[in-house]
């Protein structure tokens, strides 16, 4: 999963997709994950990082990340890996 490179992201979690003209707000966790995806981090790395820094089971993060990737695809904010 890679973030659409044209996506504009502000530091306070505001997202703008110039391809569709749509805007979004990201909660802090979504913002962190998008940041890591932009840096090229894999899903596994993100799960590991989140479960190391937050009070949450790894399995919960995996399920939530799966759901979040679905949201990114739904809103055309991501491009699939080659």
């Amino acid at each position: 999963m890679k973030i659409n490179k044209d996506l504009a992201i502000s530091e306070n979690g505001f997202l703008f997709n110039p391809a569709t003209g749509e805007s979004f707000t990201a909660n802090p966790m979504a913002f962190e994950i998008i940041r890591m995806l932009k840096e090229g981090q894999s899903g596994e790395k993100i799960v590991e990082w989140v479960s190391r820094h937050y009070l949450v089971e790894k399995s919960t993060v995996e399920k939530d990340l799966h759901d979040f990737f679905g949201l990114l695809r739904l809103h055309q904010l991501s491009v699939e890996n080659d």
Partner: protein
Amino acid sequence: MEKKPYERPHLTKLETSMPGKFGMRREQPPTTHIDGVAVEHLAKTYGSPLFVLSENTIRSSYRKALNAFTTRYPKVQFAWSYKTNYLAAVCNVFHQEGAWAEVVSGFEYQKAVDNGVDPKQIIFNGPAKTREELETATQNGSLIHIDHLDELYLLMEIAANSEHRPRVAIRVNMDTGIYPMWDRFGFNYEDGQAWDALNKIMHSGKLDLMGLHTHIGTFILSAGAYGVAAAKLAELARLLKQKFNHTLRYIDVGGGFASKNTLKGSYLPGSDTNPSISEYAEAISSALINSHFAPGELPLLILETGRALIEEAGYAITTVLAHKRLVSGRRATIIDLGVNLLFTSFWYQHPVTVAQEFSQYREDTTLYGPLCMNIDCIRESVNLPLLQTGHRLVIHLTGAYNLTQWMQFIHMRPAVVMIDTKGNVHVVREKEGIQNVISVEKLPDHLHISG
């Protein structure tokens, strides 16, 4: 390193359409406690799902309603509608407050007697009373509301063979200017059926005609309709006085007042738009006071209000079991409370709140129950925080009809607790187990599986 609290990742799409004319706050504060008792404690102690009743709220709702009527009309009597919620604990709170009992079956009649209600203060409505039930009610001096001619003739037959005179009223249906007009209960006013029935009663000389009753419908959003109903009953009373010199003891305008719940399809919340008890009281009292009755001869006004007195006192605590993302992108959350328990979710958009603090991020969610049935949807769309499995939700305004119409289906029915006025929690109905189901089943010998 200390770990930070977790919230699942979420994006909110910003809508740039025109602001709504009726823009409303969508988020609700969490319900962490009910009458001072922690929701989490209740769920852990008594299980989830769980129905919770507030004795404080029952009493305050009753007193507010009584006050709304007694400040406008001199003689008022409430009769608790058993079918709305016939848990003994609920009935007896109302009876302690002074309500009579209004029942619609032999089963409910027996419940009222067992609850300690004076049989003379039981109003027996309903379209399907048996001979035995009518004989018992006659013997006990209960108020029998006659629904049809077959019942009237049966009562005259019972009276002929009894030393007791049945104390009766007739049920009258009528056009009050609302749709749909209910005409299945009682005798019609406009076509003369009601007047015919009254004549039969008076000419028979076997029954004591005590009053007139109507039940114009349910969840009536027009208070004025009750004014029309009261005026038409008052006119029948005038005709009785004029022709037979008979004075009626009471006029019973039934139930059907809307509560604060929001009907499905409504744009604005019921709490903002539905008539208050005072509006109903004003319409009914004005109609009676402005009718022909002399000031000292006003009949007792009986009200069989159910829903509007109990709905607010009921809560359902439920637990999040799972989540999924629907094809449309909408979040779906599965909870442990289904439509078999929350029957009123077919009619209402019940308010739903969370039982713990969350951040400001929220998501439109569909709430599904645990039944393996497509119809098991508690809310098609409700704006909720970012829930995780195990979080508790509180569903509000559930006190009416759910604890009578609920059914054991796929899962067992849960416990019901009542929080008393001092904050003590009482189990008022035990959680059901498999024995409740199989103990009444019989398996024919040839169907036993051996080995």
